[in-house]
């Protein structure tokens, strides 16, 4: 059984490698412009920035209204509340 499972894995891996090579690469992330359109720029994506529009930066602002630290750091990789 172990040998069968190993053979199946090896075959699936081979199939994946072949099939993946035929798929077009996905476009890289872009920074949104002021107008809302997306553009690609090598300067984009400072992980230390406060710029996650849908993330914890908003969460921090909500807390601010309740008296939390208004200068708290943004967490660009935090989960949504």
């Amino acid at each position, binding site marked *: 059984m172990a040998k069968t499972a190993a053979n199946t*894995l090896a075959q699936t891996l081979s199939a994946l490698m072949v099939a993946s090579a035929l798929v077009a690469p*996905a476009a*890289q992330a872009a920074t949104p412009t002021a107008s809302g359109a*997306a553009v*690609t720029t090598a300067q984009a994506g400072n*992980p*230390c920035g406060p710029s996650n529009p849908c*993330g914890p930066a908003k969460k921090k602002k909500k807390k601010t209204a309740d008296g939390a630290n208004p200068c708290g750091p943004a967490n660009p990789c935090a*989960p949504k509340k």
Partner: protein
Amino acid sequence: MAPSGMASLHASAQTALAVPLRYAQAGSSLAYAALAGARTFEVLRHYPARDVVDVAASTRFYYHAHRLDEPEHGHFHLFVHGEQPGEFMHLAALSLDVHGQPLRWFTTNRWVTGEHWRPAAQLLPRLRRWQVQTGGRLAPVARWLSAMVVLYCDELVQLLHARDARLSPRLQGRSHTEREAVFEDRSLDVISECPALLAPKIAQLVR
């Protein structure tokens, strides 16, 4: 390893291969699927917008990108929820290349996600049973991530221990304020990492 453990590992490996294979056969990849149907892929935006949350399992993930450095397309952040409302811990992140192939696992400093920091020993039981289930278009992605966590469980255990080991000298014997400064150190984002390439991992299994 016990036969049941090996069978589970093989089943997870099969899922880790079969899900991206189905995408590839349809002319797509995990890198497309992770965007949950969004038309544009914007830096720092969460995909999906409200994250994928499995209430029953107390787990969550989302996909995003914040650097435009090849070869990474973006990465998933994997979380577990704590016992208190709003409490969450980051287990690891998993990056993909532009073809949707996994590249590397990594852990991050506390400030990156704003998590409730827990030592590795407290996270490992949650890691070992981490899975996320969801419906809709992200269901296969959730299955794939759950399988990847099982497949790379040993590496992830080491990764979390390496995270703690790297921070330990900077934390021991320090005041609360100094410890907080370490966790908020913006020069320290990725703390530990390891490869997540499927081919060598599968080769290990079938050897």
